[in-house]
């Protein structure tokens, strides 16, 4: 990747802040780690300080906390059903963390944690492993009937089973790639238009207006992608729990 200072992709570079070496593993504290800690801390502060008063009639902040709780609770209930209650903490943590990572990244000059495919792939891999294990523990070997859709003639099985297996294995890849591509392309686009503003001088007002609109779209995307990631997690969980 280009190391040129003004390349639109230079915003995604990881810098080491505190070098830490454990054996042969490079566990340095990087700018990516700073923003991950910031996201986790702000989720914690947002939730715990918002609920500190525990008022009967919630104020603005407490309403926001309750709203986000109910939003995910409804999502889990509608998509997974009663058995999904057990997975609510996981889904809620996933949603809040991705949302706050995306939201913090919207502030200029910050680092976009979710623009690194290894981060999003780690999220997706956790979801994938969890869903597979849940399915295996709940249904045993019967879980593999997931790969043969119901009511399909047995003659079609040799054709359909490989397709279903491939689509099952593609899930974490598509889940990770969607979040990564959205954030990376969105932030690169903002930088490219930012370059136009400088290049055009006085006429740069036009691209500046485009940036304002794009920024609104990016804010929508930051929320929407966190939502899509969570709803797909719920749908996969539902598949594993109820097998069709």
């Amino acid at each position, binding site marked *: 990747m*280009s190391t040129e200072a003004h390349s639109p992709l230079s915003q995604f570079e990881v810098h080491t802040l505190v070098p830490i070496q454990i054996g042969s593993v490079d566990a340095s504290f990087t700018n990516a780690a700073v923003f991950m800690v910031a996201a986790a801390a702000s989720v914690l502060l947002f939730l715990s300080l918002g609920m500190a008063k525990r008022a009967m009639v919630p104020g603005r902040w407490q309403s926001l906390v309750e709203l986000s709780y109910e939003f995910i609770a409804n999502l889990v209930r509608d998509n997974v059903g009663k058995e999904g209650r057990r997975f609510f903490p996981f889904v809620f943590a996933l949603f809040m963390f991705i949302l706050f990572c995306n939201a913090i990244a919207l502030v200029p000059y910050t680092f976009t944690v979710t623009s690194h495919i290894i981060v999003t792939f780690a999220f997706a891999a956790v979801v994938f492993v969890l869903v597979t294990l849940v399915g295996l523990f709940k249904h045993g070997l019967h879980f593999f009937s997931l790969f043969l859709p119901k009511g399909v003639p047995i003659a079609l099985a040799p054709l359909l089973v490989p397709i279903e297996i491939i689509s099952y294995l593609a899930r974490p890849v598509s889940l990770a790639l969607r979040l990564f*591509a*959205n954030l990376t*392309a969105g932030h690169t686009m903002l930088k*490219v238009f930012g370059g136009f503003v400088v290049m055009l001088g006085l006429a740069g007002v036009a691209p500046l207006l485009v940036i304002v609109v794009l920024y609104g779209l990016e804010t929508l995307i930051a929320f*929407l992608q966190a*939502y*899509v990631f969570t709803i797909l997690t719920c749908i996969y969980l539902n598949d594993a729990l109820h097998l069709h």
Partner: protein
Amino acid sequence: MDVEAAKLVGAGLAVIGLSGVGIGIGNIFASFISSVARNPAARATVFPFTMLGFALVEAVALYALLISFLILFG
């Protein structure tokens, strides 16, 4: 062909996929509008699915855009 020129041509070719995304997003919102026009009461139930569909199609657009950016600046 010069490598720089080939890069620009490649970046242009990479975003051809956006035409399909344009059709897709148009299709989603056209269906949303016609369904709400037929049954305005269904708006609340249909809207989340519209947004989900929009986000999924939008993601495809950004795959193409990302490849183009990587060719241009990578």
